[in-house]
């Protein structure tokens, strides 16, 4: 194991790089800002690689732990660590940051340094969320990460960006404020500790567990987002610039789901069992109903946004069946969704940059002009629909397998989404890509350049790798998931 504080580096390198990029100032130094941002993102990614190579897959506990006093007055510690659940997201996050910086390379021409700095700082903050083992440290990162995304949507977003930015910020803040009170309650109950790992062992009466669970549920459900608190997401996605949509879909949505695994399940096992019906019902509504909503969207970004909600429904469904298959499937689904939805939003961004429209009706026959693009877009659309051999299939299949054991009708409803998912994904693909060239905008399209090809190519490799050989991923998470489930099975009521 490495002696370097790898997790601290993973958090602070991007933040520090962001500040350096910010210091390059105005758009006169735009190219310098881009290069520095890319260097920072790559450096931040490189320090996360030892997390993968040095990871002990047999150990279900926390690894690469760092512990230091932060605010002794309230016993708040700078306590970091990763297990098999969080480690993948740190790497995914660092990876996506590179993609995002590259994705905005030519597109973003105003306030370049601020744009890149916002993404780098957010990347660091989100690594903080995934690695925090102290409740307040987690919360601080959780809430602070709203600021950069608020600015990204508001400054570089579309026509309704102000509305979307406010909605995004206030919605998520609402959830997290109740979460904060729950953290304080746990602090008092545990006799003055904010340590998440200690809370895992803390006995809590059922009544209190239910209230805490609901407070956590509000916070995480907004972030996931689950039906019916999902309405901020389509607005945020539609208005955000491409990079913002990628980060939002690939990483930010995972924060809520991650919260369930780190907080709700292990701290409140009895309430989790008690209220699992509620969460499963909400998840199935997301999977089926939101799937149908996605079917009727006219705007491509909105369509993918709704499909994200449906995919995240699979994730929460997988968690609350309390089986290794379900939880691991959900985790695979989260990672896979990071690649696939990121790629989908990037593809839409590629077309938007050329035509300046996201309406499906404005396209048609794109394959005639952009064959390379059409081929790659095809792969990601298939992955979004859950086609075997792509990463999208593995997660959904595992969750459905878990569901069959749990309850046939739940599995039936979940499986129906495979059909709905294929319908909205492929129908959109057909309308946009195939057919005759629809108008002169499409006529003037040029195929993707090397930068775009490289980004999509890397994402395609990742998607296929996970689809064909998911074992390295499941192997990493296996011990931790088993530990978690063993823990969740033990009642905390005394």
């Amino acid at each position, binding site marked *: 194991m490495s002696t370097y504080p790898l997790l601290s580096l993973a958090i602070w390198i991007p933040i520090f790089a962001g500040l350096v990029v910010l210091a390059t100032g105005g758009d006169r130094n735009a190219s310098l800002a881009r290069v520095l941002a890319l260097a920072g993102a790559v450096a931040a990614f490189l320090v996360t690689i030892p997390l993968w190579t040095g990871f002990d897959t047999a150990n279900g506990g926390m690894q690469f732990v760092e512990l230091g006093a932060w605010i002794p007055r309230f016993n708040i510690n700078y306590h970091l660590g990763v297990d098999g659940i969080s480690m993948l997201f740190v790497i995914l996050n660092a990876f996506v940051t590179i993609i995002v910086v590259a994705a905005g390379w030519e597109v973003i021409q105003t306030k370049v340094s601020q744009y890149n700095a916002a993404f780098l700082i957010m990347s660091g903050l989100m690594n903080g969320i995934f690695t925090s083992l102290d409740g307040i440290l987690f919360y601080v990162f959780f809430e602070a990460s709203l600021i950069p995304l*608020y600015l990204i949507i508001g400054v570089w977003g579309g026509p309704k960006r102000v509305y979307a930015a406010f909605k995004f910020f*206030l919605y998520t803040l609402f959830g997290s404020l*109740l979460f904060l009170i729950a953290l304080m309650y746990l602090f008092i109950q545990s006799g003055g500790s904010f340590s998440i790992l200690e809370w895992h062992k803390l006995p809590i009466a059922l009544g209190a567990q239910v209230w805490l669970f609901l407070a956590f549920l509000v916070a995480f459900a907004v972030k996931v987002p689950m039906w019916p608190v999902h309405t901020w997401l389509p607005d945020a996605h539609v208005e955000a610039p491409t990079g913002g949509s990628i980060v939002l879909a690939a990483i930010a949505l995972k924060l809520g789901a991650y919260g369930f695994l780190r907080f709700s399940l292990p701290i409140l096992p009895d309430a989790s069992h008690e209220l699992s019906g509620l969460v499963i019902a909400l998840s199935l509504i997301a999977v089926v109903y939101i799937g149908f909503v996605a079917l009727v969207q006219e705007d491509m970004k909105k369509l993918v946004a709704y499909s994200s909600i449906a995919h995240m429904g699979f994730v929460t469904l997988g968690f609350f069946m309390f089986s290794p298959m379900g939880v691991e499937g959900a985790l695979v689904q989260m990672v896979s969704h990071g690649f696939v939805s990121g790629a989908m939003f990037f593809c839409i961004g590629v077309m938007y940059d050329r035509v300046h429209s996201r309406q499906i009706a404005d396209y048609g026959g794109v394959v005639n002009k952009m064959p390379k693009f059409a081929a790659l877009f095809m792969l990601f659309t298939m992955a979004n629909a859950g086609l075997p051999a792509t990463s999208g299939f593995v997660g959904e299949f595992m969750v459905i397998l878990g569901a069959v054991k749990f309850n046939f009708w739940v599995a039936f409803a979940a499986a129906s989404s495979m059909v709905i998912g294929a319908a909205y994904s492929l129908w959109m693909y057909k309308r946009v890509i195939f057919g005759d060239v629809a108008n002169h905008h499409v006529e003037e399209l040029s195929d993707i350049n090397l930068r775009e090809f490289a980004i999509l190519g890397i994402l395609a490799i990742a998607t296929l790798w996970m689809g064909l050989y998911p074992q390295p991923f499941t192997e990493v998470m296996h011990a931790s998931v088993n530990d978690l489930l063993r823990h969740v099975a033990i009642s905390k009521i005394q």
Partner: protein
Amino acid sequence: MFDNFVVPNLLPAAPEIFLAVMALAILMIDLLVKDSRRTVTFVLTQLALIGCAVIQFATSTGEITYTFSNMFVDDLMSDLLKLFLYATLIIVMFYSRGYVIDRESMNKGEYYVLALFATLGMMVMISANHFLTIYIGLELLSLSLYAMVAMNRDSVKSTEAAMKYFVLGALASGLLLYGMSMIYGATGTLEITGIAERLYGGGVNKSVMVFGLVFLVAGLAFKLGVVPFHMWIPDVYHGAPTSVTLLIGSAPKLAAFAIVMRLLVNGLITMAADWQNMLIILSVLSMAIGNLAAIAQTNLKRMLAYSAISHMGFMLLGIVTGVVSGDARYALNAYSSAMFYVIAYVLMSAGTFGMILLMARSGFEAEEIDDFKGLNKRSPWFAGIMLMLMFSMAGVPFFIGFFAKFSVLQAVVAAGHIWLAIVAVLFSLIGTFYYLRVVKVMYFDAPADDTPFAAPLDMRILISANGLAVAFLGIFPQVIMSLCAYALLRSL
């Protein structure tokens, strides 16, 4: 005839005496200074404040020392609050300098002297252990501020604000005095520690005490500016020249916190159950009305006035959770969280009004929210500073405002008032909206004018430091948090 005349121990009051002498001296010296050489007065004022800080530091014993027949007390809480007071005043004077020079009717020596007298009043309030001492300090502060609000003689708005402030302030002083006289009637003493002893001893007429307490709380609520005694705040904040608004909106909160501590906690802790319930109502109303009314404002100073109301309501939450059903176990935690909140608020408030002063120039006040349009384009650096201040006010980490809210909320939860904590966070969620709007105007909108800032370099540096301090103390809040806790531990 002079047989029983004992020279009181002057040491605990050394900073006050020094400042009084300096203020009078500066008043004299200023008569010899030409208008164009007013910098001399400014420098002397700053030196007087720094001198106070040095004396404060040198004479601090860490023990609770009474002097002037127990009318005056010097303890660690007062030392700490006064040090923050001097720091605030030094910042305020730096920020106002450019603004004052640009406005002829304000560029007088009286401006500085009145500010020093106001400071002296606040110092006396902080160290008061007697109803009369509190009253003297309060009036010294208020009368100086009335005059300062009206200093811009040609402005109708300022004159009106000063009148309003004066009339309502006099009313509040009347309420306070009436309450004090009731309590005097019931206990037979004006000395705060004496009152506490009488109440412990028992045999005090409870209904007279409660009657007096109601008036006392009303008077305090007026000075703090909490609902329903808040009406003066928006008008005075709006009407006063911005440099005076900066002064009113920052340092006096420290003094108001101190007299709340002296009167209610030192004096009337045995009646905590009564005044806590009153303060809970005031606190919830303040958070509600302050935050909701702020949304409707287009004038930044008015918006910040309502935000001040809501912040003071939030701060009161820390004070109401000290005693839980007769158990004072949580007192230290609760009161120190309120103290930390006040200090954090003063830092943020000073920075925010400082930003308005930075943007203002001769003939242009920069007090509308729209005046901040496109600031990110005009100056990314100062837009960043204002962004930090706004998010800090909203209570978003990593800024000091978050830990201020955090420390008060944990005290509320520790006292078992979870519903109160939920109400508080829901109102601060509403409050976030108008802070976000300022950020929106700065970052999402195009600039309306491109005039470069006229502010002098010292102010630019200081306001940058102020903004960075909000972030730095948000990452490392431990020192001030434990200072507050330690000071109260040694003072209660």
